């Protein structure tokens, strides 16, 4: 099968929408499922952008898919080694830090940003953003990827601290659906992972079950 022309030579990139939101007792991390080449060919309709780096820590990737996969592979290894040494599950901040070190030290070559979210015994549910240049900050919720520009207004308006699990699921699904509706390189299904003290639950909402807004 011939690859379609890719004049910008961008490789496979995750033009994407990703987000992570803290709620009362846990976090939800979510993304769309589209991977595209050159912005005009969908190379994968059902890619999973939610990577499990440890039992209760997930991260999602935006930017060059190759870079993101390489970095997460290294981070997974470093974290599992770290948790053996510490004889305890790693902190979410540790996971985010590992990603940050990799992103910052290789910032000239890499083109990937991450959102890390999870639960640990010390600080409970947390959400961290590692930007493309290697900045690390903790926030109550964060959005990323090309589709995120369209939902800044929605997220600012609708986010409330300490939501319930159901409210948070609704918020995340709505936000991703709205972004998919406006961004042509985001699409497919909505993947979400709900992480709490009790465990990890993967929720998938297929395209035809997404909420519909006024013009559909």
């Amino acid at each position, binding site marked *: 099968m011939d690859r379609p022309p890719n004049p910008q030579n961008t490789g496979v990139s995750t033009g994407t929408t990703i987000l992570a939101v803290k709620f009362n007792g846990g976090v939800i991390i979510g993304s769309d499922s589209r991977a595209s080449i050159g912005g005009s060919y969908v190379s994968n309709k059902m890619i999973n952008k939610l990577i499990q780096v440890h039992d209760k820590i997930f991260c999602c990737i935006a930017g060059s898919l190759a870079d993101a996969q390489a970095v997460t592979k290294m981070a997974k290894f470093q974290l599992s080694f770290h948790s053996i040494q510490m004889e305890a599950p790693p902190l979410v901040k540790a996971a985010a830090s590992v990603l940050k070190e990799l992103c910052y030290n290789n910032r000239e070559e890499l083109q990937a940003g991450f959102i890390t979210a999870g639960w640990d015994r010390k600080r409970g549910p947390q959400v961290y953003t590692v930007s493309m240049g290697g900045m690390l900050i903790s926030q109550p919720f964060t959005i990323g990827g090309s589709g995120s*520009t369209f939902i800044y*207004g929605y997220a600012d308006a609708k*986010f409330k601290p300490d939501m319930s699990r159901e409210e948070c699921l609704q918020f995340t699904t709505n*936000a991703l659906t709205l972004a998919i509706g*406006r961004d042509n390189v985001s699409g497919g299904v909505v993947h979400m992972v709900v992480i709490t003290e009790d465990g990890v639950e993967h929720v998938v909402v297929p395209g035809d079950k997404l909420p519909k807004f006024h013009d559909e």
Partner: protein
Amino acid sequence: SEEEECEHQAESSSHSSDRTTIIAIAFEGGVVIGSDSRVSAGASVVNRVMNKLSPLHDKIYCALSGSAADAQTMAEIVNYQLDVHSIEVGEDPLVRSAATLVKNISYKYKEELSAHLIVAGWDRRAGGQVYVTLDGLLARQPFAIGGSGSSYIYGFVDAEYRQGMTKKDCQEFVVNALALAMNRDGSSGGVAYFVTIDKDGTDEKCILGNKLPTFFDE
């Protein structure tokens, strides 16, 4: 000298109001049209209280975005053309006529001009209407957003708009949307201007920065 050259360059790099947020929404008996008030040239804000809502006729307004000079000139020309037209037909012009005049200029001078006007108003025949004229097309929509700040509020307006909103709902919708966009877009800010147009007249309002709605992180 070097200093003078830098200043001159900053000014001539179009006092662009593409760096802006504009919005218009129609309700049963009229429209609400709104904008932010920032005009920036590069990193500098050259006017923090510019009103980007320009009257084309008594009950028809347009919101300016893109190059400020182009947009203002287009609005002035259409204002003149509409005056002539309304004398010829002997009554108030239709909103669609105003939008068509704007579209004609946009389309004919597509290559030279870079401005996008949203036209909104009320007329006896079709009530409240909102038209977009981007790049020379003419389309009627229930609501429209434009300018650089509009990217950030697509999700919000898609989620919040419902059919059958009242005048008050629409005013809140416009002010909330503007506030959200101004918070996220570096090129939008200042105060929020909005105009409500219905059969009884036009009502211009300005909401100062510290009276705008605030959200969870403020």
